């Protein structure tokens, strides 16, 4: 614009439009601005002529990020977050307990549920015992026999004062002699605080509840025991049902009394401090060792020897018998003689205990392959069967003599090789 806008004059539409579009020279722009600053009408025209403000460009929707489902639900239902978490935790705990029980049923806490039937046994078919003093009675609790002194025999004295070196078989607080009419074997339970003795129960003989017989006070017991043993031995093949055996066993003799005046393997020598793995023995056959991985009880057949038979409930048995190994794995096989205890865990590691399972020391692997079972060498006179989680235990070889406890251990590998060890520490191929 060549001439400034005079007062009273107004820029035309072309100039206002050029001003709004910044198409004016600088001097003309300033002149127009000065006029607009003082002219409300021209300002109104300029503002009215402005094109509508461009709508904000629609920003593209950002790609939906995948958020965790729980996060979205948490936002949607915040009040359900805590109950859901609690329910999930409870389910987790239940599942954990379930699987732990399924994996290690032996870890069920033992209770003193062992009970011994107080029902007097039926009259034994066997002839009267020749040594009535060997029959222990609850009323008469004389001093333990010399054979049982210092040993872990399951005598009444030891039961009353368990040395805690035993293997878990504890006498019932109210010891009594079980009768054949007692409940089945599964119902028999052995007190957890077993005496340091045999800790041993035999079914059906064990099913015939064991009573803490005192040798001097139970003169009839050896005969009863012998009769029961004979019965058991004669019908060993029929003892698949421990229940039936329990029905047939006339009585159960405690191991503190040896037959024929000899100390029994369970205490006659005072060294039959067997593990309670040997409770609930059921003589399935004459075979020395049999494996039954799913077995829930252990079978012991007592023959030609006074035996202390006790019954254990399976759960209690597992809970009390299976030791807690340093490997924290369940024991696959446990075997013990009078002085030493060997345990094989599921990983094939062998452990040795010289203090009745209180402490365990690993045994160096000296065999080839994986150990699957450990047992005591079978004794011809004593068939000792143990069946615990597939573990096999063999009766001590010297059990019958009762003078020398079985000390030879036998280890079986997955290849079928047999390894023997006299002390459980050094092993040699058999």
């Amino acid at each position, binding site marked *: 614009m*060549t001439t400034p806008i005079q007062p009273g004059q107004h820029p035309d*539409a072309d100039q206002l439009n050029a001003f709004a579009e910044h198409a004016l020279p600088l001097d003309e722009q300033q002149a127009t601005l000065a006029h607009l600053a003082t002219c409300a*009408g021209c*300002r*109104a025209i300029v503002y009215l002529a402005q094109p509508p403000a461009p709508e904000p460009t629609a920003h593209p929707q950002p790609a939906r990020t995948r958020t965790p489902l729980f996060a979205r639900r948490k936002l949607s239902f915040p009040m359900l977050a805590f109950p859901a978490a609690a329910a999930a935790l409870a389910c987790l705990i239940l599942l954990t307990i379930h699987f732990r029980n399924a994996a290690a049923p032996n870890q069920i806490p033992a209770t003193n549920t062992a009970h011994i039937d107080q029902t007097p046994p039926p009259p034994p078919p066997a002839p009267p015992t020749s040594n009535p003093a060997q029959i222990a009675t609850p009323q008469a609790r004389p001093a333990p026999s010399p054979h049982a002194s210092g040993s872990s025999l399951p005598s009444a004295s030891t039961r009353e004062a368990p040395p805690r070196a035993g293997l878990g078989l504890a006498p019932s607080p109210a010891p009594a002699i079980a009768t054949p009419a007692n409940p089945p074997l599964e119902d028999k339970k052995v007190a957890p605080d077993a005496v340091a003795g045999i800790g041993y129960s035999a079914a059906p003989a064990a099913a015939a509840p064991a009573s803490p017989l005192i040798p001097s006070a139970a003169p009839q017991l050896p005969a009863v025991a012998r009769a029961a043993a004979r019965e058991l031995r004669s019908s060993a093949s029929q003892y698949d049902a421990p229940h039936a055996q329990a029905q047939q066993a006339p009585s159960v003799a405690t191991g503190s009394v040896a037959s024929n005046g000899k100390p029994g393997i369970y205490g006659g020598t005072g060294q039959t401090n067997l593990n309670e793995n040997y409770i609930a023995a059921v003589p399935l056959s004459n075979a020395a060792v049999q494996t039954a991985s799913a077995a829930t009880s252990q079978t012991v057949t007592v023959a030609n020897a006074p035996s202390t038979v006790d019954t254990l409930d399976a759960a209690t048995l597992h809970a009390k018998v299976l030791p807690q190994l340093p490997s924290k794995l369940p024991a696959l096989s446990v075997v013990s003689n009078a002085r030493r205890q060997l345990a094989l865990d599921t990983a094939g590691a062998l452990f040795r205990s010289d203090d009745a399972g209180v402490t365990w020391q690993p045994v160096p692997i000296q065999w080839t392959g994986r150990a699957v079972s450990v047992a005591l060498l079978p004794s011809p006179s004593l068939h000792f069967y143990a069946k615990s989680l597939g573990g096999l235990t063999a009766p001590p070889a010297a059990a019958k003599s009762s003078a020398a406890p079985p000390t030879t251990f036998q280890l079986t590998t997955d290849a079928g090789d047999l390894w023997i060890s006299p002390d459980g520490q050094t092993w040699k191929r058999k």
Partner: protein
Amino acid sequence: MAPRPNPPPASSKTVGVSSKVVDTASQPGELTLPLPSAEPTLTTPSDVQPDLAHASVIGLSPALIHELWLAAGAESLTLTREEFASALAAIGAKHNFALPSDTHATPVQQAAFCRSLRLAELALAQACALGRDPAWQRFLDQYRAPLTQAAIAIAGSATLGHDLADSLYAELFGLSERAGRRTSPLASYSGRGSLLGWLRTTLAQRHIDHHRRTRRETPLDDLDAPAPAPSTGPQPAELAHLAHAVSRALASLAPGDRFLLASYFLDRQTLLQISRLLHVHEATVSRKLKRLTSSLRKQLLRNLQSGGLSKRAAEEALGADPRDLELNLRTLLQTSQTPAFSDKRCHM
């Protein structure tokens, strides 16, 4: 749609730019067109020669005119080179080729100015002003819908918008006559801005004119004029000092600052609208306003203190109720005695 006029006779072509320039009766930039006659005449080279000679006089070479004519696509609008050269010469002479008034434009500056114009839109506007059918056809194709939308946006109503647009169409077509000649506002389009912007501005002008007229027709019953305030005694000295200080402070403001204050506080325009008009960001306008008010307050304090008030008294005076002041800020800001919209004749 009003009937389109026939092309003007060739004899009127000689009126061209020279008549527009010398015609003091018409508004600046308006092209006076002869009334349509029943016998259209054809443009002859002898008729064109004077325009080209006039263009040559002001420095536009025929080669430049031809180049610009081709660039504008004026041929398709049946706008001859002579007509286009005449329009260019008139625009250049009006605006002195965007140079100060005391500066003579060189041919290069003239060529630069002409090339900076929106030649296509200028040719279309000139052709429409001359009443060429192809030009009007293109104009309607390109600007009918935007113009209607702009009219609706300005009027704030579809009905008023359509009425406003239709009235502008009639005016653009040149139905109004002056001294026996049709006049079209399109001839005042210089091509410095966009044709659509020019149309919008024209629409805004017409809308404000219409508003002025209709407001004056408001019934008296609707006017609830407040009773005159009871005359009070003489103003306290502090208020007199304050009014004087405000007047001095506002008078010392730069035009841009006054425009900002007037737009924001008087016109109540938003920051966005101001920023779009000034081609700056909203934040810039906001900062400027904040800085401006702050500096204005300081200037007021200085003015009050220079008027004999202490600093404390000056601050207390600033805290006076504005209703106690007999100040017309609008008048102070808008020092120009702007006549009513209806009385304005300088537009177009």
